[in-house]
């Protein structure tokens, strides 16, 4: 098998006495959609944050496209082609949707120590922004200020921002959080399309979505990987059932 | 050697005064997330109240106690009338509003007490030199300051670490939402904490008053030192404030006392006498810069983070 795009080995992260990430190892292959599931507090977001560099692990390594990125700063990882969306929407609230996306494109178009020309009038940036917005179905909302977008639109914009950085790997932290049934369905369709172009790591509570989309699923409980397999196998996995059906009940949220 | 001991004690005394000031500031910040530039004005008011009440009653201790009460009251009134409406605003609003208060207090003092400074004379029993070691004398009043400040520091430590109020204060400093969840009367707690901070600042001011001239703007320079201490010690940490205050007090005092001589060893005497005043006043800021480079979160950050 070819070298995996993302290889995580023995990753450990502690908060005080709590081990949030407990010797996690994980391979993500180029072209796959890899879902990470687990009960609340299993350490999914913590794991994602270590992959994108917002948090540094205590030990273990992360390799991306053959390069050791364990200690690399967040912005450098983004330059390498690693993009993330945040579980709690994290955009520039006082900028328009198009500005949000254009800035992401700008970040990957050389340095920004350009002091004179009007950035909002640069056709290249605007076109990239517009196409990323159209991609997620926000083509008509470019001039709207983010704080005036609906929650569902903001989730889609998160995705457009990530896409505008032209990532090789997209780390999506609960893209369906807080979405209604129709919006969720739209997001699933969107992810179906995107997976053809880019490798995706998907953290999600919506089990219907996960099982519909994922090539492989990793199950995280108390910071530990208890299973990693194709969806059919995960469905029948004893330890997974116990983790979800025992003291921790199944989490299929439809808010 | 005598000089070294004396300067060492001076440094300790100054450091303890700085602690009284920084403790109030860091408590108020830690709990209410409120930046109070006017903290230095409370220090100044403490000194002016003391000068007035001591002259009025003719008794130093009584006057000092009255001044302490007056500053406490002033703090509570200030909190009640104006500042409590600002807690849920951003820090910039705090800075702006309390900057306005400084302007107000400075001119109010000028109007009431006049532009010239006041002197607060010590009673005779506090002016005698005290023999701390065979042949080594130190002013009794400065020793008294060290004593009082140490007792207050211990009391504060006890209150914060051992009592129910202290528990709330610590809980508030590390997790603001939690006090709300406990169903505590937050408004009252805030007023109390602010009053306590004001009283500590007033105490520092009134104790310093007999040593320096009581004058307008006296609270401003020392307020900035208190900021430096908080930055070095870590915001919201009483222990950090204490250690950093002693440290800053020592460095500042010893630097001013001995740096000129030290420089003279290395530089020509004219160059040394030119550089020394500037350099010794820079010392603590250099210290702060070093702390920032090494540990931006301060040396002893409070529980969180």
């Amino acid at each position, binding site marked *: 098998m070819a070298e995996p795009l993302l290889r995580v080995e023995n990753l450990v992260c502690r908060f005080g006495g709590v081990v949030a990430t407990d010797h996690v190892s994980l391979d993500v292959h180029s072209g796959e959609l890899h879902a990470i599931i687990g009960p609340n507090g299993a350490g999914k977001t913590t794991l994602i944050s270590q992959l*994108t560099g*917002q948090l540094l692990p205590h030990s273990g390594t992360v390799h991306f496209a053959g390069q050791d990125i364990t200690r690399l700063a*967040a*912005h*450098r990882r*983004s*330059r390498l082609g690693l*993009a*993330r969306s*945040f579980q709690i929407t*994290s*955009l*520039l*609230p006082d*900028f328009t949707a198009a*500005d949000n996306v*254009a*800035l992401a494109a*700008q*970040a990957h178009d050389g340095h*920004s120590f350009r*002091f*004179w*020309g*009007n*950035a*909002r009038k640069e056709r290249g940036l605007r076109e990239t922004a517009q196409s990323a917005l159209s991609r997620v179905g926000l083509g008509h909302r470019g001039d709207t200020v983010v704080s005036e977008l609906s929650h569902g639109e903001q989730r889609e914009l998160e995705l457009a921002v990530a896409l*505008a950085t032209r990532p090789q790997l997209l780390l999506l932290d609960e893209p369906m959080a807080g979405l209604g049934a129709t919006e969720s369905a739209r997001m699933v369709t969107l992810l179906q399309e995107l997976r053809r172009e880019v490798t995706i790591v998907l953290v999600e509570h919506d089990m219907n979505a996960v099982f519909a989309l994922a090539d492989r699923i990793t199950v995280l409980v108390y910071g530990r990987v208890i299973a990693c397999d194709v969806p059919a196998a995960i469905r029948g996995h004893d330890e997974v059932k116990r983790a979800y059906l025992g003291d921790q009940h199944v989490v299929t949220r439809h808010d | 050697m005598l000089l070294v001991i004396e300067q060492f004690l001076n440094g300790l005394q100054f450091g303890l005064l700085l602690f009284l000031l920084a403790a109030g500031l860091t408590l108020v910040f830690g709990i209410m997330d409120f930046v109070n530039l006017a903290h230095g004005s409370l220090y100044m008011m403490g000194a002016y109240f003391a000068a007035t009440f001591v002259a009025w009653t003719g008794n130093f201790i009584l006057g000092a106690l009255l001044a302490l009460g007056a500053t406490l009251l002033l703090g509570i009134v200030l909190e009640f009338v*104006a500042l409590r409406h600002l807690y849920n605003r951003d820090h*910039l*609003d705090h*800075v*702006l*509003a309390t*900057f*306005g*208060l*400084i*302007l*107000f207090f*400075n*001119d109010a003092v000028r*109007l009431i007490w006049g532009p010239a400074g006041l002197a607060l004379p010590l009673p005779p029993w506090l002016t005698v030199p005290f023999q701390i070691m065979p042949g080594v004398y130190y002013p009794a009043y400065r020793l008294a300051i060290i004593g009082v400040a140490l007792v207050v520091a211990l009391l504060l430590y006890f209150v914060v670490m051992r009592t129910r109020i202290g528990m709330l204060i610590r809980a508030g400093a590390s997790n603001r939402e939690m006090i709300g969840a406990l169903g505590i009367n937050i408004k009252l707690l805030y007023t109390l904490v602010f009053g306590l901070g004001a009283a500590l600042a007033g105490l520092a001011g009134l104790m310093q008053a007999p040593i320096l001239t009581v004058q307008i703007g006296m609270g401003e*320079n020392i307020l*900035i030192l208190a*900021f*430096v201490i*908080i*930055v070095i010690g870590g*915001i919201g940490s009483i222990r950090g404030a204490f250690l950093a205050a002693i440290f800053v007090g020592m460095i500042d005092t010893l630097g001013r006392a001995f740096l000129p001589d030290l420089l003279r060893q290395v530089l020509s005497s004219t160059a040394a*006498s*030119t550089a020394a005043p*500037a350099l010794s*006043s*820079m010392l603590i*800021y250099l210290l702060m*810069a070093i702390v*920032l*480079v090494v540990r*931006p979160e301060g040396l002893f950050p409070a529980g969180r983070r």
Partner: protein
Amino acid sequence: MSASLNTRTIIVALVVAGLLLLPVYTTLSGNVFGLTVFTRIIIYALAAASLNLIMGYGGMMSFGHAAYLGIGGYAVGILAHEGIGSGFIQWPVALVASALFALVIGALSLRTRGVYFIMITLAFAQMAYYVASGLARYGGDDGLTIYKRSDFGGLIDLSNRVQFYYLCLFCLLGGIYLIWRIVNSRFGMVVQGLRSNERRMQAIGFPVNRYRLVCFVISGTICGLAGALLANNTDFVSPAAMYWTRSGDLMVMVILGGMGSLFGPVLGTIAFLLLEEALSQFTEYWALVMGPMLLLIVLFARGGIDGMLGRPRRG
């Protein structure tokens, strides 16, 4: 929105026109005092505009901006004292010195955020104040008298009130134009993005502190220019120019005018200094009124003058 925007545009246009025509009025009426007052206002407006660049657009709450006023001023004063009278030397030195100070202070202060940043910029500016007070050769506490204004050969005569006024106004309008270009450039978008959401900017690939620091240095340099102007205006420079209350005044001017608005600092400075002027005519204790007024503005009129003219407060 458009209606209020127009009010704002009209007021800004009136103010600029008024500033441009003021010397005509003062020359005709012989009211020299007005020109003196407004020269000072324009210089402070430039300083406030530079602070607005980092505070309003960049979200960096610097409480030490008066330091650059002092550094720019001392560069002019010290060089003049040492017999170097040429403005072609004095002014570049003033700018470079301010830029270097901003570089060092910024590199240190930007390791922190929020209140820490406010306190640290304040402390470092106070350090500059103490250093200036310790400069015995250059007057120490008492300050340094500048016997001859910067010499620009036959180009411009700074001792001529009207010429000097127009130079200051040119610097102000030039500075605002520069800030306008910067704010709308790629660089400006990054800096404003950082004010809005730093974590997001990092995640999409920006090395955040580098951009903040460059912005901080640009702002300090512009304020250094204001310092050089101020020293020439008063023929004098002293540590008091960088006392921390001066930094506070600058902050008030920016906030009063409305943060993150291009002409806001100009309006804020005019309001603040005219109010100070008027109150001090009326009573010696003008701060007794000014102080509580600030408190009331914070409590009831957020967004400043510019906000009242219909511009929503951001962030």
